[in-house]
C-alpha cells in the first residue's frame, strides 16, 4: 500500500484534471440514478393517472423535460468523465516514465551495471502502464461508489427505512465484502501476471539479440520452448484471473438481482400496509437497480489491485536504490587545476568480498601521463571508476586540485574526464547524432576534425548516407573496431582535460592501432592521461608506468623515450 501511496503523490501536479474527472463521474452517476428513478415513477404515475381518470391534473410536461435533460447530462457527463480521467492518467504515466528514467541517472554508473536492460524496459513500459488502474479503476470508482451508495441509502430512507437498511446492507456487501473477497482470492494471480510478463519479455529479447549464436549452437529451439512455456504459464495465470473476474461479474449480477427481488417483496409488503404509494414502488425499485451499477466495477478492480501493487513495488524498488556513492549536500566549485591525488585509497565491492584496492596513494600533477599495467581482474578498471565516481573508496580520499572529489557536483566532475571504456555504446541513431552526444553543439568543422582524428573519414565516405547513416541496433552493422573509432571521435569532441583510457586500442588492427596511438599522442599533449592496459602496446604515450598487482601499485619503470 505504501508503494501505491508513493505513486499517488506523483499524481499531484495533475490534481485539477483528477478532481475534474471525479466531479464529472459524480454528475454522471447522479444523472444515471435520477434518470432511471424518475422514468420509473413517470410511467407508473402515468398509468395510475390514466386508470384513475385524473389525466387533466397530471402534468407530464415537466418530468418529460427533466428526463430529456438527465439523459443528455448522463451521455455528455460520461463522455467528459472518460476523456478527463484518461487524459489525466496518461499525462501522469508520461511523467512517471520520465521520472523513472531520471531516477536511474544517478544509478547508471555502478549500481545499474548488474541490472538487465530488458527488466528496466519492462519497468518503464508494462509496469508503469499497470499504474493506470490506480486512478482509473480504483480511486475514481471507489469515490463515486462511496458517495453514490450513501446518497441512495439516505434517499430511500425517506420512503421506507426498512428498505433503505436492507438495500444499504446489500450495497455494502457488494461494494466492500465482495471486493475484499476477490482481492484476497486474486492476489497471487495478479502478482504472478506481472512477474511472468516481465520474464516473458526478457526471454523474448534474449531470443532476438542472441539469435545467431542460438541458431549456430542449435539451442534456439530450446530457448524458444522456454519462451513458449513462459507464455503458456502467463496465459494460464491470466485464465485463472479471468475465471475469478467472471465469477465476480456473475456474483455482482446475482447480488444486484437479489437486491431487486428483496426490494420487490418489501415494497409489495409496504404497499399492502399502505406505507408506500403505487408510483413510489417504481421509484424505490428503479433506484435500487441503478445503485448497483455504481458498485459493479469494484470487485474486479480489487481483484487486480495486487497487479498494480506489484508493478508499483517493482518500479519503486529500482527507483529507491541508493547510488553507490554519497552525494554531497553542498558542492564546491571546480578547482582551477586538474591535479589528481589518491590518498590511502582502499576499496572493495561489498563487505563480504575481497579488497580490490589496498591503501593506494598516487600523485599526478596536471599534465602527468601514467600507464597502469596489470592482468585482468587486478583492479585497474576499478581504479579508473573511482575517479569517475562509479564508486567511492571505503578508506582514503581522491582529490582533484586539492578538493576531495566527493565534494564536487558529479556532473561537473565528469565533465573533466574524457573516458574511453572497454565497451563502446552506440545508440540507434545516425553517426552524427552518436557523435553529438559528446558535444551537442559541435560545429561541422569540429565534427570533421574528430572524424579525421579517429580515422573514420574513409569509412564514412564509403557510406551512401555519410554521417547520417543509422548505426546501432536498427542501423547498419558496425564492426567492433568501427564502434571503437566512433568512441574515439567522441573523446576528441569532448576535449576534456583528463583522459582515462581503458585498453584504448583493443579491437583495432595493427595499422589502425598505430594511427590511433599517433593521434592520441598529439591530442593528449597538454592533458593529464591515465591509461590502463594488460599489455605493453601504447605505453609510449606515458611517462611513468605502474604495475598493479593484487590491489597494490608498484612503479615499474620510467619511460626513457619521452
Amino acid at each position, binding site marked *: 500500500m505504501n508503494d501505491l501511496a508513493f505513486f499517488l503523490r506523483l499524481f499531484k501536479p495533475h490534481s485539477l484534471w483528477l478532481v475534474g474527472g471525479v466531479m464529472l463521474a459524480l454528475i454522471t452517476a447522479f444523472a444515471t440514478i435520477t434518470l432511471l428513478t424518475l422514468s420509473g415513477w413517470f410511467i407508473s404515475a402515468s398509468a395510475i393517472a390514466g386508470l384513475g381518470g385524473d389525466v387533466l391534473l397530471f402534468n407530464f410536461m415537466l418530468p418529460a423535460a427533466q428526463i430529456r435533460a438527465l439523459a443528455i447530462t448522463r451521455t455528455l457527463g460520461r463522455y467528459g468523465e472518460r476523456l478527463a480521467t484518461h487524459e489525466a492518467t496518461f499525462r501522469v504515466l508520461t511523467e512517471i516514465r520520465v521520472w523513472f*528514467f531520471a531516477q536511474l541517472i544517478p544509478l547508471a*554508473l555502478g549500481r545499474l551495471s548488474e541490472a538487465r536492460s530488458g527488466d528496466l524496459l519492462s519497468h518503464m513500459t508494462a509496469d508503469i502502464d499497470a499504474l493506470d488502474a490506480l486512478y482509473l479503476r480504483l480511486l475514481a470508482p471507489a469515490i463515486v461508489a462511496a458517495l453514490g451508495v450513501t446518497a441512495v441509502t439516505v434517499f430511500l430512507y425517506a420512503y421506507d427505512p426498512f428498505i433503505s437498511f436492507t438495500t444499504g446492507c446489500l450495497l455494502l456487501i457488494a461494494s466492500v465484502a465482495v471486493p475484499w473477497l476477490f482481492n484476497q482470492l486474486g492476489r497471487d494471480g495478479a502478482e504472478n501476471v506481472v512477474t511472468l510478463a516481465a520474464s516473458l519479455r526478457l526471454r523474448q529479447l534474449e531470443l532476438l539479440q542472441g539469435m545467431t549464436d542460438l541458431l549456430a549452437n542449435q539451442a534456439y529451439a530450446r530457448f524458444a520452448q522456454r519462451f513458449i512455456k513462459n507464455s503458456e504459464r502467463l496465459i494460464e495465470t491470466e485464465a485463472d484471473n479471468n475465471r475469478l473476474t467472471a465469477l465476480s461479474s456473475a456474483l455482482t449480477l446475482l447480488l444486484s438481482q437479489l437486491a431487486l427481488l428483496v426490494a420487490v417483496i418489501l415494497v409489495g409488503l409496504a404497499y399492502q400496509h399502505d406505507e408506500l404509494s403505487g408510483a413510489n414502488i417504481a421509484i424505490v425499485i428503479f433506484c435500487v437497480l441503478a445503485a448497483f451499477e455504481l458498485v459493479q466495477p469494484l470487485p474486479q478492480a480489487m481483484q487486480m489491485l495486487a497487479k498494480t501493487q506489484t508493478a508499483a513495488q517493482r518500479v519503486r524498488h529500482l527507483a529507491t536504490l541508493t547510488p553507490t556513492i554519497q552525494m554531497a549536500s553542498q558542492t564546491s566549485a571546480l578547482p582551477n587545476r586538474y591535479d589528481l591525488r589518491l590518498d590511502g585509497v582502499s576499496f572493495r565491492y561489498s563487505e563480504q568480498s575481497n579488497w580490490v584496492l589496498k591503501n593506494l596513494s598516487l600523485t599526478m600533477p596536471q599534465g602527468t601521463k601514467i600507464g597502469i599495467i596489470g592482468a585482468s581482474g587486478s583492479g585497474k578498471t576499478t581504479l579508473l571508476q573511482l575517479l569517475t565516481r562509479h564508486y567511492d573508496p571505503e578508506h582514503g580520499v581522491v582529490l582533484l586540485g586539492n578538493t576531495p572529489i566527493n565534494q564536487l557536483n558529479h556532473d561537473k566532475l565528469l565533465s573533466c574526464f574524457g573516458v574511453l571504456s572497454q565497451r563502446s555504446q552506440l545508440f540507434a541513431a545516425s553517426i552524427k547524432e552518436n557523435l553529438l552526444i559528446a558535444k551537442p553543439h559541435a560545429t561541422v568543422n569540429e565534427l570533421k576534425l574528430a572524424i579525421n582524428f579517429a580515422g573514420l573519414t574513409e569509412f564514412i565516405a564509403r557510406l551512401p548516407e555519410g554521417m547520417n547513416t543509422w548505426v546501432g541496433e536498427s542501423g547498419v552493422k558496425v564492426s567492433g*573496431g568501427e564502434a571503437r573509432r566512433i568512441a574515439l571521435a567522441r573523446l576528441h569532441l569532448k576535449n576534456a582535460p583528463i583522459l582515462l583510457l581503458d585498453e584504448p586500442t583493443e579491437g583495432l588492427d595493427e595499422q589502425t592501432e598505430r594511427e590511433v596511438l599517433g593521434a592520441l599522442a598529439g591530442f593528449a599533449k597538454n592533458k593529464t592521461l591515465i591509461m590502463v592496459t594488460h599489455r605493453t602496446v601504447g605505453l609510449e604515450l606515458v611517462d611513468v608506468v605502474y604495475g598493479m598487482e593484487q590491489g597494490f601499485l608498484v612503479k615499474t619503470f620510467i619511460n626513457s623515450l619521452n
Partner: protein
Amino acid sequence: MHPDDNQRYFDQHQAREKICARWLKKQSKTVRKSILLTALAGIANGIAVIIQAGLLANILSALIIDNATLKPLIPLLAGLVVVFIFRSFCVYAQQVTGFQAGASIRTALRQQLTDTFAVLGSAALKNQQSGALAAVTLEQVDALAPYFSRYLPQHYIVGLLPFIMIAVVMPINWLVGCILLFTAPLIPLFMILVGMGASSTQRSQFLALTRMSGYFLDRLQGLATLKLFGQAEQELKNIHKVADGFREKTMAVLRIAFLSSAVLEFFSAVAVALVAVYVGLILLGQIHFTFAPPISFKIALFVLLLAPEFFIPLRQLAIYYHDKAAALGAADAILTILEQVEKTNVGWVSDSVTQQSKSLIEFNNVSKSYDQRQVLTDINLNIHQGEKIALIGASGAGKTTLLNLLSGFETATEGSIWLNGQALNRNHALQNMAYIGQSSYLFYGSIYDNIALANPHTTAQQIQTAAKLAGVTEFSEQLADGLQTLIGERGYGLSGGQQQRIALARAFLKNADIIILDEPTANLDKETKTCLLVVIKQLFNDKTLIIASHDAEVIEGMDRQIVLQHGRLA
C-alpha cells in the same frame, strides 16, 4: 503530398486492411467452437432477460394495479430467482469460454512468430530493433485476443438476439416492435461511420508503442554512456517526447472509442424515450390512434423493461468494434513479420535430394542477390574434409554472405550447395558445423552455462576441459566464482577477447566436423590475436576449418586460400 499519391496510399491502405481482415478470419476458424459457445451463452442470457422482464412486469402490475397479495405471486418470484441464477451462470460462461478463444490463438501465434524469427535469422531482422520486435510478440499478440473473445461472439449475438426480441414484442404490440425494428439499424450504421478511421488511428498507436519500446531499450542500454558525457539529463526531454507521443496516439484512439459509445448511448436513449413517450401517452389516454393497439400497464412495463435491453447487445458490439480495429492494427504488425519469410525467399530444399560427390562441400554456380544488388556471382567451389581454408577479400566482397550460405542462414538465389552429397539446408548444415560470428552473444547466466549452450547435458568434466583448452580458465580462475561467475547480457564485464574464448569453448564442445569463423580476430589486439590463433589451431586440428579474414597472420596459418573479389572467385 500529391493528390494522386494520397489516393494511392488510401487504396493500398484499404487493400492492406482487407488482407489483415482475411487473415484474422482464417485465424478465427481454429477457435470456432469457443466463439460459438461464447455467443451461445450471450444469447441464452438475452433470452433470460426477456423472461425476467415478463416476470417482473407481471409481478409489479399485480402489485400496483390489481392490489394483489404476495402469496399468489410466489411461483412468479421463484421463477425470477431461477432466472437470476441462470443469468449469472451465463455471464460466467460467456467470459470464460471467450477467454479460451483468445488464449489458444495467442499461444499459437507466439509459437509461429518465434519460429519465423528463426527461419528469417538475424540477417533479415537486423533492421529492426529487438525492443520493438518484442513489443509485437508480447503486446500486439495480446491485443488480438479481445477480437476473438468478445467481438466475434458479439457478432453472432447481434445477428440473433435483437430478432428474437422483436419476434416476442411484435405479437404483443406491433407499434413498439416497429419502433425497435427501425431504430436498431441506426446503431451499426453509425458504428461503421465512426469505426472507419479507427483502425488507422489504432495502427499509429501501435507504431508509437513499438517505437517507444525500441527507443527506451536503446537508451537504457546506453545510460552509463549518456551519464559519462553529461547528456543523461538532456535525454529526459527525448524520453518525454517519445512517451508523450505514445500518450497522444493512445488518446486519439480512446477519443474515437468514447465518442462512438457516447453517440450510441444517446441514440439508444432516444429510441427508448420514443417507446416510453408512446407508452406513457397511450396510458394517459392522450393519444388515440385508431390503428394503434391498446396497451395495459403490464405490457407497458414489459416493453419498457425490454427496450433498453434490446439496445445493449448492439451497443456492446459498437464498443467491441474497437477490438476489431485493434486486432487489424496488430494483425498488420504481425503479418509484416510473417510475410518476410516469403519476401526473403527462405525456401529450403528437402533432405531427400542427394548427389554423388567426393568433396565435403560443393558450390555449383551459386549466385546470391538482394533485390537488385548482386553480392555473389557464379561461385564454384569444392571443399574437402580436413582442409584449413582462409576466405579472403576486402570488406563488401561477399565473405560473410558466402559463410551465411554455407551455414544455411541464407539461401542461394541461383545454383546449388551440397554438403556430404546432400542438398544443404540449415538444420543439416548446423548439425555439422560450428559457427562463430564477429561478436558472440553471451546470455545472462554463468560462464559455465554459456559454454554449455550447444549441449546442456555436457558433463562438468567436459566443460572444464573445453574451458581450459579455449583459454577461458586463464581469466576465469582469477574471478572469485570461477566458471560459475555470472556474466550479464551481452557479456557485461568481459573483454572482446574473453568473449571470443567462451565462443570457442562452445564451438569445441559442439564437436562438429566443420568450423566456420567470421573474422574471429577482427576486434582483437595483436597479442590476444596470436594467442587465439594458437588456441584455434590446437582446438580444431582435426576439423575442416574455414576462416574469413583479411588479416595476414590468420591467412598465413591456413593451407588454402579462397579469394573473393566483388562477389566472384578470383
